């Protein structure tokens, strides 16, 4: 199967680039990032605030299956419809600190488009930690699943 989403994280650099081509017109791709109701659907998060303008800010809140709430927020530095969003991103109450995101939206054909997310971290170590987060979470999930199965056997 083709890998549509690419992650490029060069060794020793405090940045990473995520790219993806979509089977969607550019306008719809951009709308997925600017319409709070749609952001909620695909990010699986609650949008508390989303001010799509320069010097605007945004605030998301995600609730995990155990009912624990996680907050995310950032400030928008540039908002150019169908073209570019520059913003900061921060996971609240985590040691990751703030990261800088450059989101570029590009038309490929009338019905296809491309997104490139360039993320800059404060340090190489922080970037590597974040890259490993889903890996670590996967381990926890595997353990939890195992626990669930074991508890059902009792």
């Amino acid at each position: 199967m083709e890998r549509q989403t690419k992650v490029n994280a060069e060794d020793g650099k405090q940045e990473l680039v995520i790219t993806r081509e979509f089977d969607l017109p550019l306008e719809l791709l951009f709308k997925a990032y600017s319409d709070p109701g749609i952001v909620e659907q695909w990010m699986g998060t609650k949008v508390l605030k989303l001010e799509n303008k320069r010097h605007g800010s945004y605030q998301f809140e995600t609730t995990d299956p155990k009912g624990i709430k996680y907050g995310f927020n950032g400030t928008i530095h540039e908002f150019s419809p169908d073209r570019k969003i520059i913003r900061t991103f921060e996971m609240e109450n985590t040691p990751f600190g703030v990261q800088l995101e450059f989101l570029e939206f590009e038309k490929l054909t009338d019905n296809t488009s491309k997104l490139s997310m360039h993320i800059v971290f404060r340090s190489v170590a922080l970037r590597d930690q974040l890259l490993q987060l889903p890996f670590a979470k996967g381990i926890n999930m595997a353990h939890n699943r195992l626990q669930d199965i074991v508890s059902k056997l009792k």
Partner: protein
Amino acid sequence: MNLRRDVFQAIADPTRRAILLLAASQAMTAGAIASNFDTARPTVSKHLHILTECKLLVQEQNGREIYYHLNPKKMKELADFIEPFRKLWDDRFNKLEAIMKKYSR
């Protein structure tokens, strides 16, 4: 070819993945690694043996202690550290695409 298969077998086990993650943060002795798990010490030793055999972990003698550390070269070959991160975004973007397709009609 056989070795390559071994590497993927090595990381298929959740405990061994957890060991790799521990060793990624710092070089550790077998005892220090085992103290993070409820499993019996010989079980952890077996996992360490497998990980060392396929070169994902490297042993380093420091005085009387043997430290295990991650072999970044091998891990890079594997590129599996990044894969769950990539998968996370791939899933997200697939969802985005599916949702937005409804709007295009």
